[in-house]
């Protein structure tokens, strides 16, 4: 039976019982019991009305009359629980203040805690004197009570607490373990904005004696903060206080060892040498019998593996045995770590171990593993077959929507980024939709098939899968399948006859949308079933994204409200680094930021339509300084025989509207270039960016270079910002922009290789060139390396762009593809010649 002394307890009855608090002769045991019942009620979620709470509070205050310590303790807890309001607090203030100065340590300590909990600023100034005394009280419980209360009060009354610095400082020297801990915490909070003071505190304590593991952990955290803030990365010798952290790895308390190890792994720009002792210690924890230690270690190593996978590989064996850990969080962390640190040869073995593991864990863990597998596949693209098979297998097993979506997103990303995986990936997705319970996923996959399928070597093999959806699924999926079929028909002329036959069958579908779509496609794809090309504008009309989506509205739609001019989309900022790669859900018609997208944009402009394939586009280069009236940056598009400058302009003046905006380019210092076309901007209103294009012809296949000076020319009309209306007449004006250059690096694509050595060895020795250069005095080795990398415009490989501190030499590996599809590999050896001169080979 479920015994409980509180069985049948009821709030009303207990509140009645509380009347005993008013008795002249108090029975301490009885009163304690009633308080316990009240606390139990509150704990179980019972609430007191304002009236009830007030009554209980007043009753409880009567209990100060008893001298029973046990009862007084319960009274303290009860008052804190009731959180009396300001006017109620007054009743107990004097009793509590009396306790605060009592001979009984327990009373002093707890009265302080209660008072500080319920106090306001005025009361606080009254008792401040006692609190300061309490902080240096010889009884540690009292001191701790005051210090901890100070920490809380710092949030609401900082000016008052800061006055206690001297006493707190003294308490930091206390021999009582926890008093030092509390004093240290409070002192640091008081001083935390004073970098020098924190520095001093850390310096003295790292040399002094710290009396508890808790205080030591705090000290480690403050030391990390000091290290972080002592900016100098180019300092000779070791990091300040590193020795202290490393020494803590030998502390007798495990929590300190762990705190130090973790702190080391989190140091800014930590080197492998610095990491080693920390990782050694964490590795030992991996085989501890205590799950908490194993978990803490594997979680930390998992984070390290993200940036320094090589440093963690020594732990791989221990990690592998954690895959079968009873604690599933530990097992999942171990697996994802192995996926980050594993090398190509261990992938197959790892996948075998993971397969057994997956059925054992919850969806949320599975998603983590899926993400790690995707990263692994991107790292070792040659392994795409086995990894893709794995993903496809788990896709077909039991799982929730988020989990399946994560797998599908991963497959999509792999298809996009690994060309060799495309065909098998698409087939896996086709097989999945044969049996997919989630309409959202089916339609998204069908849409994706429509984009990628037509580009493959044999698109016809996907038709069967797509058409089956039209038979077997719900209306939403059927409609999606119809669109996909049509897309295949539009993009692949040879498939038109077959697609037409299938689309005609869809004319008899039950659902309006399905029939309407089929009708639309049949009528617009052209050729009536014959093998003819579908016009580009038709494709754009059918499958392009809408510039302005149709919003639901109550007014009837008026065709005249649609602007007739083709407006290019305002381009968004470059994608933030480190952003998670998006899968299916990624908005398709976003701002162009890939070669394909830019190519599409440029070829949609008739004047540039026949420039051919876009080789490269540069990052935007600012042509104006910050905070100017007109902000302009330029993207250089490189084709085989042309370059196109895309000037992205923003008008930052609300009172102006610019019209007929062009860029006048002076190419007198770029002899090999001849201007052939320009596309001005009709209108540039405030805060609505637009693009101007100017195209130059250049000798085909030649990496011509030159300088171009630019002038913005426009008609400016004044605008009344309150109405947004512009005057009818404008004035012609010009605005000088900065020069832009086309340089050799513009003809180089940054394409990395995963195994530089292999790539180097497979290249013919006849094509190797060696040369030596003196770079002269440079700021530092790292600066010289960076400058050369930027000049060449190539992709650094295997992390060799990072120059360790204090190196006197460095090897940097670069790879890229030069215009004309020429693969280039560069091996740079840098050395410091004398104090500042850099030599390079």
């Amino acid at each position, binding site marked *: 039976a479920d015994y409980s*002394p509180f069985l049948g307890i009821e709030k009303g009855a207990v509140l009645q019982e509380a009347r005993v608090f008013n008795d002249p002769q108090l029975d301490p045991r009885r009163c304690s019991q009633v308080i*316990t019942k009240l606390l139990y009620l509150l704990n179980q979620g019972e609430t007191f009305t304002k009236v009830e709470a007030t009554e209980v509070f007043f009753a409880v205050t009567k209990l100060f009359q008893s001298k029973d*310590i046990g009862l007084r303790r319960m009274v303290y807890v009860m008052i804190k629980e009731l959180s009396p309001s300001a006017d109620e607090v007054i009743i107990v203030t004097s009793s509590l203040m009396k306790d605060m100065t009592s001979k009984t340590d327990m009373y002093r300590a707890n009265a302080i805690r209660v008072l500080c909990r319920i106090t306001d600023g005025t009361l606080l100034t009254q008792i401040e004197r006692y609190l300061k005394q309490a902080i240096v009280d010889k009884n540690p419980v009292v001191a701790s009570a005051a210090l901890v209360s100070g920490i809380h009060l710092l949030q609401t009354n900082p000016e008052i607490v800061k006055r206690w610095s001297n006493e707190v400082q003294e308490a930091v020297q206390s021999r009582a373990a926890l008093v030092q801990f509390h004093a240290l915490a409070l002192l640091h909070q008081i001083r935390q904005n004073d970098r020098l003071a924190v520095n001093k505190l850390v310096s003295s304590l790292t040399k002094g004696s710290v009396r508890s593991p*808790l205080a030591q952990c705090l000290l480690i*955290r*403050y030391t990390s903060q000091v290290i972080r803030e002592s900016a100098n990365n180019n300092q000779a010798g070791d990091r300040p206080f590193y020795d202290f952290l490393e020494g803590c790895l030998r502390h007798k308390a495990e929590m300190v060892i762990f*705190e130090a190890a973790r702190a080391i792994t989190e140091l800014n720009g930590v080197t492998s040498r610095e990491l080693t002792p920390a990782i050694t210690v964490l590795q030992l924890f991996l085989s501890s019998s205590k*799950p*908490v230690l194993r978990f803490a270690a594997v979680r930390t190593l998992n984070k390290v593996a993200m940036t320094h996978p090589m440093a963690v590989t020594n732990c791989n064996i221990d990690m592998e045995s954690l895959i079968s850990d009873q*604690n599933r969080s530990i097992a999942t962390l171990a697996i994802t770590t192995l996926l980050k640190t594993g090398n190509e040869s261990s992938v197959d073995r790892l996948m075998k171990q993971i397969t057994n593991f997956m059925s054992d864990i919850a969806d949320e863990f599975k998603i983590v593993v899926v993400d790690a597998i995707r990263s692994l596949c991107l790292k070792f693209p040659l392994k795409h077959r086995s990894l893709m098979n794995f993903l496809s297998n788990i896709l077909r097993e039991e799982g929730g929507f988020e989990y399946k979506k994560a797998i599908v997103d991963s497959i999509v990303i792999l298809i996009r980024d690994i060309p060799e995986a495309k065909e098998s990936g698409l087939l896996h997705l086709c097989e999945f939709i044969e049996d997919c319970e989630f309409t959202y996923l089916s339609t998204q996959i069908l849409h994706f098939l429509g984009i990628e399928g037509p580009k493959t070597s044999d698109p016809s093999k996907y038709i069967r899968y797509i058409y089956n959806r039209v038979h077997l699924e719900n209306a939403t999926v059927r409609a999606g399948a119809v669109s996909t079929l049509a897309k295949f028909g539009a993009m692949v002329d040879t498939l038109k006859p077959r697609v037409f036959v299938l689309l005609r069958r869809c004319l008899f579908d039950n659902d309006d949308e399905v029939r309407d779509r089929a009708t639309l496609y049949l009528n617009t794809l052209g050729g009536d079933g014959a093998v003819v090309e579908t016009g580009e504008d038709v494709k754009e009309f059918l499958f392009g994204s809408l510039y302005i989506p149709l919003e639901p509205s109550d007014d009837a739609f008026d065709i005249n409200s649609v602007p007739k001019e083709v407006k290019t989309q305002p381009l968004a900022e470059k994608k933030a680094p480190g952003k998670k790669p998006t899968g299916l859900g990624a908005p398709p018609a976003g701002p162009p930021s890939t070669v394909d997208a830019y190519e599409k944009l440029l070829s949609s402009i008739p004047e540039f339509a026949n420039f051919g394939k876009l080789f490269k586009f540069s990052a935007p280069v600012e042509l104006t300084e910050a905070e100017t009236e007109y902000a302009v940056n330029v993207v250089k598009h490189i084709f085989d025989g042309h370059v196109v400058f895309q000037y992205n302009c923003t008008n930052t003046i609300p009172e102006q509207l610019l019209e007929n905006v062009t860029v006048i380019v002076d190419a007198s210092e770029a002899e090999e270039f001849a201007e052939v076309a320009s596309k001005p901007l009709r209108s540039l209103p405030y805060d609505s960016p637009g693009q101007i294009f100017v195209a130059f012809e250049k000798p085909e296949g030649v990496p011509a270079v030159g300088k171009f000076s630019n002038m913005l020319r426009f008609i400016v009309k004044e605008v009344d910002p309150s109405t947004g209306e512009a005057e009818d007449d404008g004035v012609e004006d010009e605005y000088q922009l900065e020069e832009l250059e086309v340089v050799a690096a513009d003809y180089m694509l940054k394409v990395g290789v995963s195994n530089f050595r292999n790539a180097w060895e497979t290249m013919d020795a006849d094509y190797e060139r060696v040369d030596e250069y003196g770079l002269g005095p440079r700021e530092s080795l790292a600066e010289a390396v960076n400058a050369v990398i930027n000049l060449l415009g190539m992709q650094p490989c295997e992390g060799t762009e990072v120059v360790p501190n204090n190196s006197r030499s460095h090897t940097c590996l670069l790879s890229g593809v030069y215009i004309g599809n020429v693969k280039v590999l560069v091996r740079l050896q840098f050395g410091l010649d004398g104090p500042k001169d850099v030599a390079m080979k």
Partner: protein
Amino acid sequence: NSCPAVKNILILDSEGKRVAVKYYSDEWPTNSAKLAFEKSLFGRTLKSNARTEAEITICDSNIVIYKFVQDLHFFITGGDDENELLLATVLQGLFDAIALRLRNTIDKREALENLDVIFLCIDEVVDQGMILETDANAIAGKVAIQNMDASATLSEQ
């Protein structure tokens, strides 16, 4: 703020119902939010064996260390970047202190019969999220003053 912080301490029975709980964070503002958290946590940890060694899990992006004894489930919750071993030490201190006060009979019945002791122990371990004490003897000592008289003082720890 780099000070270690405790978000809650929970003692639940073998069906996940509350014996004694204390929250120190606004992360669960309503009672139903608290109950939902307790339910979720209890469900996740039910099947694990946290009797010999304390176990650990992540719940709603928080670290939770837990320990089971008889029909009681003890939990302590901290933020996601808290030092796990530190939290475990706090839980162990509370656990051992309760064991000392209850003379090593730690089960639901004893706990409910001595709920005042439980509340006091929790009160002496964490103050509004700040760790007050982790040594079981010290905690038990602070709670055990029932038998002393009013003029007694606590000896130096």
